[in-house]
């Protein structure tokens, strides 16, 4: 069974600085996708970034990038030049290959605070 673990319940960062959120997972699949979602107080889950396991290059989306280490089953999210609008819950997500294809398994989330 797939599992997703986020070990940091809360993180804090100063505006304009960089923060890294951790995520580890467990799977027997060799090719898969990984996702980071952001959930602001509006409650809508917003896709931040995604990574395909077979791609060597780490994904980047503007100020967001990942550090994907397949052997270690680690998928961390780096936010550069943090902005007040980045304050939210961040969830790491992994596809449920063991069950019906298509749905995601989410970690417990990391609450990110941004200090002005």
């Amino acid at each position, binding site marked *: 069974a797939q599992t*997703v673990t986020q070990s940091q319940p809360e993180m804090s960062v100063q505006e304009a600085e960089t923060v890294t959120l951790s995520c580890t997972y467990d799977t027997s699949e060799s090719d898969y996708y990984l*996702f980071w979602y952001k959930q602001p107080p509006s*409650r809508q*889950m917003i896709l931040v970034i995604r990574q395909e396991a077979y791609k060597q290059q780490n994904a980047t989306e503007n100020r967001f990038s990942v550090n994907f280490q397949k052997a270690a089953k680690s998928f961390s999210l780096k936010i550069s030049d943090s902005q007040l609008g980045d304050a939210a819950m961040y*969830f790491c*997500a992994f*596809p449920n290959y063991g069950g019906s294809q298509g*749905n995601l*398994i*989410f970690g417990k989330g990391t609450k990110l605070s941004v200090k002005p």
Partner: protein
Amino acid sequence: EAGVAQSPRYKIIEKRQSVAFWCNPISGHATLYWYQQILGQGPKLLIQFQNNGVVDDSQLPKDRFSAERLKGVDSTLKIQPAKLEDSAVYLCASSLGAKPGGSYNSPLHFGNGTRLTVT
């Protein structure tokens, strides 16, 4: 494109009462998901539809929860009777297809959710 629409935004009911949530997915999205998010946790899948058929309802408490997706578009999720532990945010999501994880090119799009409080 219009996003996933959900209503109501908030609902407060007493235990043993019934409640229904509505979801309208993004036009053309064949797959629809209902997730339950208890405070302090990540979303957990309740049920997944592919068009109007159920793909996965293994984590749906079928003695009290029911869901349908008529005509493969809108969906309703019902709880009857509600329990205190049903207090949560109920999120609806949709995607174009049902490939693993929604697939790289067809990620899940979420609505704003319904916050349910059972007293």
